[in-house]
Every structure is written in structure tokens, then in C-alpha cells.
């Protein structure tokens, strides 16, 4: 396998007596869609928080593109190309879709210590925002306030914000949360198209999506990775079936 884009080594996080992350070791290869599955409370979101930099691990290392980013603040990791989306939608509700996305574009294009020139006059930002909006299916909603969008549209904007950072690796935390079947299909299509340009660590409960999209799957139970393998291997793994998949495994 090629040099890993993301390498997590012995990551640990405790909250009092509770072990939320228990020696997690994980690799995401360039161009890979790597799914992270596990029952509720397994520590998936806690792991994402540590990878993205909003939560400091107690032990272990995180390497991104070969560099140790364990102590790097979140905004630094985003600049390095590691961006996340949230399970609970976190957008700028009073801003238009265009302004939401162009904020993310602005973060990576030039200094934001500009005090005089109206940002609305920066057509390059707006154009790039429009391009990303079209990519996530919001091309005709640019002027709508983000808070006024339908739930599924907000979920698309959520992913769009992460995408707009021009990340090399996206940490997508349950992008299909709360979506209907049709909307989920559209999100699956979107992530499938991302495959060409960006790597993805995908946390998802929708097993249909996971088995269709993932190149490899890691299974997290009680904070520890109990199995990693191709979809076929995971499907066949007796421990995984017992611990998590149950009857949900597509046959």
C-alpha cells in the first residue's frame, strides 16, 4: 500500500473513568474512502473530534501526510488539508448559502485581515462558492439563508462547507443523518463523485451507503478498533456480525 495519508497511532482518550478512545490505530490511504462503523456510543464522533483537532487526545499520535499533527490546532489542520463535517448540522444559519461557502473559500485564499474592501465585490470568492454549491446540489439556492433550507439541503451545505476548504481528507460525520431514502441516494452519489479528488473517512450508520462506498471499513466498538478490512471481509467477520452488524448485513 502507498504511504498513508492519515495515520493514527495508539490514540487514547479518557473522560474520567470512561475510555472513549482505546488505543485506536488506523490508516487512510490516498484516494481511499474509509468507513468507520460501530454502535451508538462506540466513540466515533469523539475520534473525529480528536482527528480534526477540537479535542486533544490523552496519548497517541496523529500523522497527516507524513507530518505529526497531534498538537496542531484545528484551524492549522484545515489549512494542511484535513477538514470535517458535523453529525449535528453546524452552518451559518443567518448567512446565505453563497456567503457560507465563500467564507470557507476565503479562509484559504488570501488574508482575512482586510478592513476596507467590500468582500461582496470579490467575484472570485462568489464564483468558487457557486461552483461548490453546484457540486453539492445547491446551485439554485445560493441566495437562500442557510437556516431556511430544508433539512437535506442543510446536510448538503454541511458537507459543502468541508469541501470548500479544499481538503485532501474529509472527515464526514454521518452525512446522511436524518435524510430520507432519495436524499441519501443523492448524498451517496455526491461522495462517490468526490472519490476522484479527495480521500474520505466516513462515519455512517446507513449500511447500504457504507457497503456501496467504502474501499475499506474499520469497526469501532467501545472505543477500540475490532476489525479493519474490505467490505467483503467485514461482512464475513464473525466478531463484527456479533458485535454490531447483526441482521443488517446486506446479503
Amino acid at each position: 500500500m502507498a504511504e498513508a495519508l492519515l495515520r493514527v497511532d495508539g490514540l487514547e482518550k479518557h473522560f474520567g473513568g470512561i475510555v472513549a478512545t482505546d488505543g485506536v490505530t488506523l490508516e487512510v490511504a490516498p484516494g481511499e474512502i474509509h468507513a468507520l462503523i460501530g454502535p451508538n456510543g462506540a466513540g466515533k464522533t469523539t475520534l473525529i473530534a480528536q482527528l480534526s483537532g477540537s479535542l486533544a487526545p490523552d496519548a497517541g499520535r496523529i500523522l497527516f501526510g507524513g507530518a505529526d499533527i497531534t498538537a496542531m490546532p484545528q484551524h492549522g489542520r484545515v489549512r494542511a488539508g484535513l477538514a470535517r463535517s458535523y453529525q449535528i448540522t453546524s452552518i451559518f444559519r443567518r448567512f446565505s448559502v453563497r456567503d457560507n461557502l465563500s467564507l470557507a473559500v476565503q479562509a484559504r485564499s488570501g488574508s482575512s485581515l482586510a478592513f476596507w474592501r467590500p468582500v461582496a465585490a470579490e467575484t472570485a470568492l462568489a464564483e468558487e462558492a457557486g461552483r461548490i454549491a453546484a457540486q453539492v446540489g445547491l446551485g439554485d439556492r445560493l441566495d437562500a439563508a442557510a437556516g431556511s433550507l430544508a433539512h437535506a439541503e442543510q446536510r448538503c451545505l454541511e458537507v459543502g462547507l468541508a469541501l470548500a476548504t479544499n481538503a485532501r481528507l474529509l472527515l464526514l460525520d454521518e452525512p446522511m443523518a436524518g435524510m430520507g431514502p432519495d436524499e441519501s441516494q443523492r448524498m451517496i452519489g455526491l461522495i462517490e463523485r468526490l472519490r476522484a479528488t479527495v480521500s474520505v473517512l466516513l462515519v455512517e450508520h446507513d449500511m447500504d451507503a457504507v457497503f456501496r462506498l467504502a474501499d475499506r471499513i474499520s469497526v469501532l466498538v467501545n472505543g477500540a478498533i475490532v476489525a479493519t478490512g474490505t467490505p467483503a471481509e467485514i461482512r464475513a467477520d464473525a466478531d463484527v456480525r456479533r458485535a454490531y452488524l447483526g441482521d443488517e448485513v446486506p446479503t
Partner: protein
Amino acid sequence: MRRALTVGVLLLAIAFPLAMQAIDQTYYVTMASRILVYALAATSLNLILGYGGMISFGHAAFVGAGAYTASIMIAEGMPSAWIGWPLAMAVPALLALAIGAISLRTRGVYFIMITLAFAQMIYYLTVSMKAYGGDEGLTLTQRATLGFGLDLKDDATFYYVVLAILVAALFLVSRLVNARFGRVVQAIRENESRMEAIGYPTLRYKLIAFVLAGALGGLAGALLANQNSYVNPGILHWTESGKLMIMVILGGVGHLYGGVFGAIGLLGLEEVLANHKFAWLAALYPDYQQHSLLGVGVAMLAVVLYAPQGIAGLFRRGKDG
């Protein structure tokens, strides 16, 4: 239309001292200057409180530091406004840098309390400055000198200088909030953790806004000291911070003219309640002139209940819902 209204109001403001001289009511020129100075101070607070969502309960510290800096410069024999006033911005800016670097790491009620605590520390510092009057305060032997044949002792001249500074500050703020920096600050107010997650070091931007607000507040303080020809620690008291907050909330949180409307509203209300006898109000509540703050409280209640966007929000109705 909007621009025409702005120009119209500005022309009225320019004509105001002439009109007052014509009817021999120059007292109102002094009062108007005072309102404009507070409008500047409230505008500087609105930059962080309204646009940045940083509920600072210590803004009087910056206003006071500016007032003391400007006064001490005069007391030490350097009355030039061209030296004193920039210093009266630099000292509060440095103070804001230090206070902000610590307090901006906290959130919510903790931020309110820590800014209040810092401001009270500066307040007691001025009380203990015996060389400059301590709690008795410092009387200025003269006002700052400006050159160009402008005499700040003349009430109309002082008014025009304050008006020019306020207009310049409002123009600056209007550019700033619509520029990249301003959008970042407003987005941090909306959703700070998401701003971190799309690559912004949010503390840095908040701190810069905090420092800018401190500098602008300091300039207002310098003007206030010059107008009163006197400064005492009372200018740094926490009730002054509260007064500025009331102005911002009354005028319109996060509206360009919120500070201006708030200063006019609050100081105007105080003036009217304290100096004019309303028979119906006296019948209702005989002591109301001794308790003019009660009237302010009622006005605040009305704003919070019926006009949460403040006075500025009333003018915007229909524009953006």
C-alpha cells in the same frame, strides 16, 4: 434613498449649532457634543458586542484609559491633540490586547464577568493614582490644542470636531464590517466552532476586533475628558460600562447606527426626565425626577419586548424582515 437620508441628517447635524445660536440656546450644543461623544463610545462597543457577539462588560476601562491618558498629557504640559489623542487610543489598545488575550478564551457569562473584573481593576488603579488626583479626579487647566486656528474651548468648534470624528469612525466601521475582516467577525458570532473547522484562528480575529474597539473607545474617552475639562475614576466605574451596553441594546445591537441611536435615546431620555416636569407623570409617580433611571428601565423593557433590534431596527422594518 438611504444615502439621501444620511446626507440629510448630516446636514441637520452641521446646522444644529447655528440654529441653537440663533435662538440663544447654546446649552444644547454642549449637550449634543456629549451625546456625540457617547455615540462614539457606544459605536466602539457595538463593534465587539453587536458585530462580534463579545458581551464585554468592561468597556468603560478603555474609555477611561483614553480619558486619563489625554488628561495626563495635558497635565504634563503636552496639550497637543495630535500627540495626546493618538496616545489615548494606543494605551487602551494595549490594555485591550492584554485583557482580550486572557478573557477572550472564555465564553458566555464567564467572559462578561472577567471583562468586568479587569475593568474594576483598572478603576481601582486610577483611584490609587495619587499623583493625578486619586479618587478626587484631575481638573484640566486647558483643553487639548488642535492648531489650524481651531479652539476647542469654543463649544461650537468642539461640537464640529467631535462630529467629524464620529462621522469618520462610522465610515470606518461601515467599511470594516463589510470587508473580509468584518465578515469573519460576524461569522464567529454566528458559529465560532464552525469557523475553526473551516480554518480560521478565531481567537486572533476576536482579539483584533477587541483591540480596535478599545482604541476607538479610548478616543471617545479623550473627547469626554476634554469636554468636561475634568476626569475622575467614576468614568471607569462598572455602571459606565453598563450605560454603554444599554445604549447599544437600546440603539440596535449590530446595527451601524445602533450606538448613535442609543446615545441619543438614553441621554435624551435622561435629560427630558430630569429637567422637564410632566404633570401626568408626576401625578402617577411624584418622585420620578429623582429616579430618572426608572424611566430608562421602562424604556429598556419596551425595547426588549417590542423592538429587540433596538431603535435602528425600527428604521429597517420591511427591509430585511
